[in-house]
Each structure stands twice: as structure tokens, then as C-alpha cells.
């Protein structure tokens, strides 16, 4: 019965999907800024996303500096206080958000395209990125708020697990340091550090400007010119240092008084421009990235009833980002869960996906591709990534064929090339068990 239903839909679709990919326009400004633009007139709105190579990986010895700098950008500009600056945006209905992770720091402005509103919003954005005053009082306040944020980290097994996991994977590499800092590092940060960080990393040569919305190319060019012109003029940041593999197995327990034990298993894996990325993507989809039907999830959840959420994912980054299998289980099931995860993972690593699994994963990824591009917000995210990691402009156009081209052997090779099962890191967060549970 269902086969009749399915066969009807199986083949008709792929060709049509390419229509979902919007044409990307790209240009580089004289000041080094790189602009990416998709014109879209469906709604009278525009999204502008500025991405700087100014994430936590640039913190040096002052963990948290990148995040603090990002948070302080709009806390006083050109002599106006934070409330006045925010009012200029908010009174015309614009929304500004910012953030930073390990590779990137960003600001995202969404505005109406009604000329007066857009003018005022862009003007204010230029003021925010171009003339941050970093007032001393704001500096103290935001640093203090980050310290409160760390208290929240210390009551979250999930956050504690992540910090320990990155530290174990990366050691002294910049990725090992927590982007939200530590009590100790935040105490050492001075206002001048923030000013220096801003001048170095919020430079015109270090920004990708992604724009999606109901404006034309000339407007987009003017806008990119105006924003990047306001930035400190300077070059792109140098590449991050390479990651040195740990070379040995590592197991760690973070003691925490919780009802569940959080488990993370993984290793540094792929750079964003790695040629294995599509094979790894398809493989991870089969393994633990494809939702309820993926191997790890269905085994842990449906077969054993061990966890609510089990998944694997990888974070392709400027330098090899982590591959991680994660779950949370009742404390007395932790040993058993690790056993189950290892078994499923090692089997997959050695044998790769079955033809059926491979096919299902490819259909899900290709069939779901239009869902990745069905809003301006999602498209501007892709543009930022393409720009930041210098992916080819036809990345989205060739996406489907590159997924389709992946073979089971490609997946097996990619996983074996990037993952060494003998040097996996295993982090647990939870109460120390008295004796190993059997």
C-alpha cells in the first residue's frame, strides 16, 4: 500500500528543487570588506548580517574577550548612551542582535525597507560598529553580567559538559578556551583590551556583509560601503593555528549533582573546506544527525528507552571542529549507554552505511534542501557562511549533486580518515558512581 504511495513521488522531484536556489551576487570593496547579496522582493524587509573573524578563537589568553567586545558594541556610541542608540533602532521597528562563538562574531540587523526606517536603521548600525565608546561603566557592567552568566553555566550539566569536552579536545589550541570566559580570565580583562580587540578584529578587511531583502544592487552596494566605511580600516585576521591531535584516549568525569548523566564522545574532525565534507554530512545523517530515524537515536530511544535525546553532529570550522556524539541518561544507565553508543558507532565506522541507509539519508537531505532556503533569515545565514569560509559561490547550486554523488565507500573512508576510535574523548557530567554499575 505505502509503496504505491511512495513510488508516485520518488523521482519527480529533484530537478524542480534547483529552482529554490537564489542567485547570489558578490563583490569585494576597496577597503577589503566582502559583500554577498540576494535580492528578494517578497516582503518589504531587509536582513543585514555582519560576520567578523572575531570569535573566541581570537581571545588569546583572555578567554571571554571576544564575547565581551561584541556585547559592548552597542552600549554607548558617538557620545550617545545605550538607550538612545537602541531607541533610534527600535522606534523604526528595526531589530538588532549580536553574538559570538569560536570562529565568528556577528551583528544581525533586520529592518523594514520603508526608506526613512531603513535610512535610520542603517545609520545606527554604522554608528554601532563604527563608533563604539566602550564607556567604562558599561564595561564594568557587561563584564559583571558575564560573571553572572558563568553562574548559570555552573548550574547546567549541559554547559559544563561542553566546556570540559572542548578543553579535552583542544587543550591549549584557541578552540579549547570557553567563549564565555572564566571567572579568572574575565577578572584580568581591562577596557583597553576591548578597545584593542575591536580595532584589530572589527576591521573592514575582516568582515563579511551578507544582505538579503527588498532592495536593489545599487542600494546594497551603498549600504555595504557605508557600513564597512565606518569600521576601522585594516586587514583580515591571520589564519588560526592548526590543531594537534591529542594522540591518546581520554576519559573524564565532571562531578555534578544531577538526576541524569550527560555524555559526550568525540574528537576534532573537519575543516569547513575539507573535501570530505559532503560524505561526512551524509554519513553523520545516517549515524545520528537525521533525527528520530538515525542509528544512534533509534537505538538509544526506541530500542532501549535509555534517553530522550541522542544525536551526533559535527561543526566544520576554520580549523578542524569537533565531531560529537551526545546523550543524557539516568545516572545508573551511564555505563550501559556508553557501551551502546560505542557499539553502534564502531560498527558504523568499520562498515559504513548500508545501501538502504545511504539512500534514505540522501533522500532526506536532498528532499529537505528547499526547507533550508525558505526564508530570508535562512538565506542570509548561508550567505554569511559562504563568505566567512570562502566557499565557492555555486555552493548552493551544486549542493544537491554533491550529496547525490556520495557513495557508501566515500562515507566509510571519510569517517575512517577523520575519526580514530582509539583516541576518542569521553566526558561525563553527573554524580560519581560508587562502583561501576553492572
Amino acid at each position, binding site marked *: 500500500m505505502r509503496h504505491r504511495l511512495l513510488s508516485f513521488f520518488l523521482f519527480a522531484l529533484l530537478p524542480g528543487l534547483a529552482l529554490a536556489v537564489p542567485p547570489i551576487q558578490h563583490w569585494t570593496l576597496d577597503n577589503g570588506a566582502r559583500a554577498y547579496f540576494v535580492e528578494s522582493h517578497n516582503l518589504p524587509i531587509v536582513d543585514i548580517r555582519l560576520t567578523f573573524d572575531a570569535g573566541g578563537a581570537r581571545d588569546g589568553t583572555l578567554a571571554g574577550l571576544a564575547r565581551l567586545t561584541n556585547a559592548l558594541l552597542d552600549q554607548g556610541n558617538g557620545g550617545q548612551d545605550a538607550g538612545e*542608540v537602541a531607541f533610534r533602532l527600535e522606534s523604526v521597528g528595526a531589530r538588532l542582535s549580536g553574538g559570538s562563538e569560536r570562529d565568528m562574531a556577528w551583528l544581525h540587523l533586520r529592518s523594514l525597507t520603508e526608506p526613512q526606517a531603513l535610512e535610520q536603521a542603517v545609520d545606527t548600525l554604522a554608528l554601532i560598529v563604527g563608533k563604539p565608546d566602550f564607556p567604562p561603566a558599561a564595561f564594568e557592567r557587561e563584564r559583571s553580567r558575564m560573571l553572572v552568566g558563568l553562574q548559570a553555566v555552573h548550574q547546567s550539566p549541559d554547559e559544563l559538559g561542553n566546556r570540559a569536552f572542548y578543553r579535552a579536545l583542544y587543550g591549549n589550541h584557541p578552540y579549547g578556551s570557553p567563549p564565555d570566559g572564566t571567572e579568572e580570565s574575565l577578572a584580568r580583562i581591562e577596557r583597553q583590551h576591548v578597545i584593542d580587540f575591536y580595532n584589530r578584529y572589527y576591521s573592514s578587511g575582516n568582515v563579511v556583509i551578507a544582505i538579503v531583502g527588498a532592495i536593489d544592487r545599487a542600494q546594497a552596494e551603498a549600504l555595504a560601503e557605508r557600513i564597512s566605511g565606518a569600521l576601522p580600516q585594516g586587514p583580515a585576521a591571520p589564519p588560526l593555528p592548526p590543531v594537534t591531535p591529542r594522540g591518546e584516549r581520554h576519559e573524564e568525569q565532571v562531578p555534578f549533582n544531577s538526576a541524569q548523566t550527560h555524555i559526550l564522545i568525540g574528537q576534532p574532525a573537519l575543516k569547513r573546506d575539507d573535501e570530505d565534507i559532503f560524505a561526512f554530512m551524509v554519513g553523520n545523517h545516517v549515524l545520528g544527525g537525521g533525527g528520530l530515524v538515525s542509528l544512534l537515536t533509534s537505538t538509544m530511544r526506541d530500542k532501549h528507552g535509555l534517553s530522550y535525546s541522542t544525536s551526533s553532529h559535527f561543526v566544520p570550522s576554520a580549523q578542524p571542529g569537533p565531531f560529537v556524539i551526545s546523550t543524557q541518561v539516568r545516572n545508573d544507565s551511564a555505563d550501559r549507554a556508553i557501551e551502546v553508543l560505542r557499539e553502534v558507532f564502531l560498527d558504523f565506522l568499520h562498515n559504513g552505511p548500508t545501501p538502504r541507509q545511504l539512500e534514505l539519508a540522501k533522500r532526506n537531505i536532498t528532499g529537505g534542501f528547499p526547507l533550508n532556503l525558505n526564508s530570508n533569515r535562512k538565506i542570509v545565514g548561508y550567505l554569511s557562511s559562504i563568505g566567512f569560509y570562502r566557499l565557492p559561490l555555486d555552493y548552493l547550486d551544486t549542493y544537491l549533486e554533491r550529496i547525490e554523488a556520495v557513495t557508501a565507500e566515500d562515507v566509510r573512508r571519510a569517517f575512517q580518515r577523520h575519526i580514530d576510535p582509539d583516541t576518542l574523548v569521553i566526558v561525563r557530567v553527573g554524580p560519581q558512581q560508587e562502583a561501576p554499575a553492572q
Partner: protein
Amino acid sequence: MHRLLFIVLVLLALPLTAASAAERPQIQEFMLKNGMKVVVRPDHRAPVVVSMVWYRIGSSYEEPGLTGISHVLEHMMFKGTTRYPGGEFSRIIAEQGGRENAFTGRDFTAYFQQLAADRLPIALELEADRMRNLRLREEDFRSEVQVVMEERRLRTEDNPIALALEHFNTIAYPLSPYRNPIVGWMEDLEALTVADLQRWYQRWYTPSNAILVVAGDVEPQEVLRLAERHFGRIPARATPKQRKPVTLTSPGSRRLELSLPAELPYLAISFQAPSIATASEDWEPYALTVLAGILDGGESARLPSELVRGQEIAAGVSASYSAVARLDGQFSFGAYPARGRSLHELEAALLEQIARLQEEGVSTDELERAKNQMIADHLYQLDSIFYQAMQIGLLETAGIGWQKLLEFEERIRAVTAEQVQTVARRYLTEPRRAILHLNPISGEQG
């Protein structure tokens, strides 16, 4: 993976409508012969569709002893039917490039699929099948209820603020079933049986208690035709009429001091307030919505300006109000003290902000800022077809009706400074107030 949509409060408030006629959503509604409602929102920007089936059943319908049953049933809906046993549903959707999930709230249980638009018939066939043919097996239930308990441990028991708010709800809603945790109390989960679920399914999963919402690259007439084919043949069944639960609108001042293993102190203040469904004067929920925007609609709003910057007494503060609810809801505040400041100081400062607003009212600038932002936010939401389908489902299951979407902008624009002050005086009062202090005690680690 089925996400529990907890705390409807946090759901950014409010259905906002379009800024101009050009963007006004063209929504169509149909009724099938068996009483099932179909609402279609065409949006042709991308060749995709989101399909949702909403049932008017959730934690606020649950009797004592049965809390969490709606949410457990949501999980069990993925366990298969005779025709599509086991995980076939999920497998087929995955194979079709779809994404699917489900969520349970106080007033609803909802299931959705996101797909390429021409695959809509698959989603409808599968949803119609599990509306009447679900197989509830003891063995699946035993394993799945364990999964739900893990979900509860993850979201509530190991999260001090969630745990505190769960306790707080029992005094913030002294009588209203909105006090029930959506995930259910652990003891109730332990006592739940497959026979309970069978009864719940029989009673509430009827065509006349369901709403199909489809948004995306579709034609309404075609959706109607498909809905008739798949859902139309399900026989009509009466849905039990539940009497509207009693709620206390003005229960008296309440306070909960809670000490939990945690690091971060936390303050919550809630006031009983009407929703669009319960308001006696229909402008009130909109005035309350604008009030929330004035207090906390951005960095220039009052609370961040006065308490986070200005006095530097809060490390973070929020105000929220949801106009979309079947029963009376709450106007709520949540806040973390700045370092070195106490919960008592923070409470006093927050209450002083409320008092000031009640006495002095709001300025034209603040009012216009808040309204402009809400109307722009509404327009921004049109960027997401998922969100549009959500709004329709929320309004329908709250008994308000999706048509209110179309009035929203007009209603917001009509709110006056005087009305904002009036609702602040009328609802942010001591007899409607409950206060929570979460005092951290250092946990025994390891």
C-alpha cells in the same frame, strides 16, 4: 525529539498582523462534514509546505493524577498503526525529505511535517491514519514512558529555574489547571497505564476536535480536496464537552521562597490577567501586550534601561504576557539580580517600576516605539511559514479563532496611553500577585 512546548508564556506573545493590505495574509477556512476544520494559508515564496494537525487537548484538560497524559500520548503517536507499524511514519517522512515533530502545550497537542509542497498528500494520509488507527501497545508504552521520564529529568529536574517555576505555578495558578506541568508530575508518569492512554486517545482524537493547518506553496481548494480524501472519511464522533475550569481571578497575594541546589538566584513575579479568550473588555489584552512591549520590548524599553543599566540592580530582566490562551493567563516578570544585589532589592526595584507606571503612565515616545516595533515584528514573522501556521493553530486551540490575526495591527495601533495605564492599574495588583524567590544552596557535588 518531540519537543515539549513548555510555558506558553514564553511564546513571544502575540499574533500580529500585516502592516498593509498588500501583506495581509489570505487565509481560507473550510469545515469537513465530520466537523474537522481546515485552515489554509497560501505563501508561494518557496516550493515548500508545512502541515500541522492540532488537537484541542493539552495539560490544562488533565485531571489530578493524570498530568502528563497528553504529552505521553503525543510520544506514542509515533509508535505506529496497523498500516504503518513501528517507526514507518517517521521513516517515510524522512525519505521524502521531510522534517517532522510534535509539541504539547496547555491547550493543545500538535503534529507537524515540513515538506516539498507536492508531497503534502503523504503527510495528510499519514496523519489521517494515526488519527483513527493508532496501535497503543504495552511494550511500546513501557519503553516510551521511560523516554518521557528522561525528558522530564533533562528539562525540569536538572534545571533549577524550570524546577522552581514548576513549583511556582502551583501558587501562581491556585485553582486553574494551568498549574499542571505539561510534562506531568513524575508520580503521575509512574502511575500512568496504556489503558489511560487508550481512553484519552478515544476521547479527544476526534475529527471535530482537530484542526488541520496548512501553510506554504499550496492552493486552498486543492488542500480542501486532499483533506476531504484523507480526513473526510473518518467518521464523525462526538467530542466530550468539558466545562470551563474555574479560575480565581484575584486569589490574594502569594509568595514562594524556594531553596534549591543552584548557583544563580532568580526572581519571578506573576499577576493573573485575562487573555483574548477571557477578557471582558476586548481592548484589554492588546493594551497588556503593548504594556509588555513598553517594559521589555528591546534595549530601550523600561526594564533594561532602568534596572539593567540605570540602577544596575538586575543582570537580566524580562516581562511577558501571552494574549493567546483558553483560560486566564499571567502577566509575568523574571529577573536575575546583578552581582552583589539581593532578590529583595531586585523585587523592590521591580515593584517600584510597576508602581511608577501605574501612577505616571507612559510617554508618547515609549508608546509609539513599542507599537512600531510590534507591528514591524509581525511583518518579520511573515518570513516564516512555520510561524504563521503556529499562530493559526494557537488561536484556534485557544478558542479565539484565527480571524483575530487580521485585526491585530489595527488593535495594537488603537491602544492609547490611558489604556496602558488602566490595565497596569487593574491587573498588576497585589491580590493578583505571586512572587517567587529561588535561593541557591550549594549542591553536594559528586
